[in-house]
């Protein structure tokens, strides 16, 4: 007969403390990672040969997916909004403002960032995770090259510099999609659709969306690189790193969106009080 030796299960308080300690350490590691990466960003620029291929992957290869999703979200927005706006005829003229405002202020930046987190962030985490478990990151260190400078800085720059362009594309395609459905399918007069948008939406709306996108791009790059660098060994570890990078990036995008929207609204009220 075999005798099983059972280890005592820690109590709920102990488990809570352990979880808090783990989370505290993880946040500390992330902060340290970000600070050291940012140090390298200002200390030494990455070479063009390192930066350009990553810009191609992050920017050019994301154009189709961002464009298509932007187009469809504008079209869906038109379908859903028209059904509500058409019930109250005076509101119908505001359909363009509602669609274009939603796209420019929120959906364009968030959608472009979500697509970037899914397409690029996961790929970054998987690539760096594989480099970690196959000792390629150690090899860089042994060859006298700092992995943060060589791997993180170019990815950070590519995400931060190119996400505003992808956001502009998502905005444009979303606006076009909304206009296409509203004017061609539901027969709205184009002049009435566009004129109120021109009056009610301005450079402030576009710029706040683009500034938000820069924060989204930075968070995607840093979270994805961090997850990749701290990937656990094996296929499971790399897969988990890729999944977690998307989930954490997505949460960060939504949280940042909330806080930045609050921040920009308060600035707006300060600059242009009612």
């Amino acid at each position, binding site marked *: 007969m075999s005798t099983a030796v059972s280890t005592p299960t820690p109590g709920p308080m102990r488990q809570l403390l352990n979880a808090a300690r783990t989370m505290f350490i993880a946040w500390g590691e992330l902060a340290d990672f970000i600070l050291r990466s940012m140090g390298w960003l200002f200390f030494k620029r990455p070479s063009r040969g390192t930066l350009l291929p990553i810009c191609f992957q992050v920017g050019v290869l994301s154009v189709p997916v961002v464009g298509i999703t932007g187009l469809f979200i504008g079209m869906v927005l038109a379908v859903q909004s028209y059904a509500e706006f058409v019930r109250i005829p005076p509101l119908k003229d505001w359909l363009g403002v509602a669609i274009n405002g939603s796209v420019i202020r929120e959906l364009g930046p968030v959608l472009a960032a979500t697509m970037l987190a899914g397409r690029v962030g996961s790929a970054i985490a998987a690539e760096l995770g594989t480099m970690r478990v196959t000792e*390629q990151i150690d*090899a860089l260190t042994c060859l006298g090259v700092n992995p943060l400078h060589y791997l993180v800085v170019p990815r950070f720059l590519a995400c931060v510099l190119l996400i505003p362009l992808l956001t502009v594309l998502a905005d444009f395609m979303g606006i076009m999609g909304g206009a296409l459905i509203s004017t061609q399918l539901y027969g709205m007069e184009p002049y009435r659709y566009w004129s109120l948008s021109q009056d009610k939406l301005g450079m402030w709306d576009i710029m706040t969306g683009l500034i938000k996108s820069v924060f989204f791009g930075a968070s995607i790059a840093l979270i994805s690189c961090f997850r990749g660098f701290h990937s656990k060994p094996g296929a499971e570890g790399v897969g988990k790193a890729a999944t977690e990078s998307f989930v954490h990036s997505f949460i960060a995008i939504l949280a940042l969106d909330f806080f930045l929207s609050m921040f920009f609204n308060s600035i707006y009220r300060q600059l242009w009080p009612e």
Partner: protein
Amino acid sequence: MSLTGSIPLLDDQLPPAPPLVRLENVHMQFGPQPVLRAIDLDIRRGETTVIIGESGCGKTVMLKLMIGLLRPTQGRVFFDEQNLADLNERALTQQRLRFGYVFQGAALFDSLTVFDNIAFPLREHTRKSAQAIEESVLQLLAEVGLAPSLLTKKPAELSGGQRKRVGLARALILGPEIMLYDEPTTGLDPIMTDVINDLILQVPKRHPVTNVVVTHDMKTVMKVAERIVMFMPLSRVQPHEPQIIFDGTPTELAICSEPRVQQFVRGEARMSVP
């Protein structure tokens, strides 16, 4: 003019050269798991030292401590009489350039071709022209016995032996003073194992270099070793027993009476009791 400085000293009057690498009372622990305990080890200049031991006894950890990839939990690691813990990041990087590290899985950069992998250290640390870099790469490729037709291939297209040889060429290209080999023949067929062993032997003849080889392949041990150091996993030594249970020449290994050494040398599942 004083003549005292010009009196030649006989070789046997010269003080012995200090060891190139010295580990002093090194302890290493990962979380709650101790791996190395109170290790004192000198790596003498110009010698090929082979570190052997069962899987999990801390051989690779030892190599990573020597090059400063890991910091000991306790104790000091000296390279060329400099304590690695005293060096800042830049100075440590300069010291690392005096090492060549051949990784167990070669750790070639997946996204680069064979040529770019071998040329990588030259591009990062020298101002050599493209032509000079190409000449250096071709010369090293010939030294490790690979055809120039492989230069345009990616690491994924290479066999295990080819990857190891490309990794060796990359490690040698900056003319290191010390070569660290981590399981250089693991996973190779017997012929390729012998090819790699020959290369390890040839390297000091072409470049003045100190070799440290970590392996559990006894054919490699007997072929390349001038000095053999055997480690035991901490789980198999008594609390006050040293972790290094053998330090001597191949001849001394053959006549060593320590049963655990003989068990390892003979590759026996059970220890033979004398």
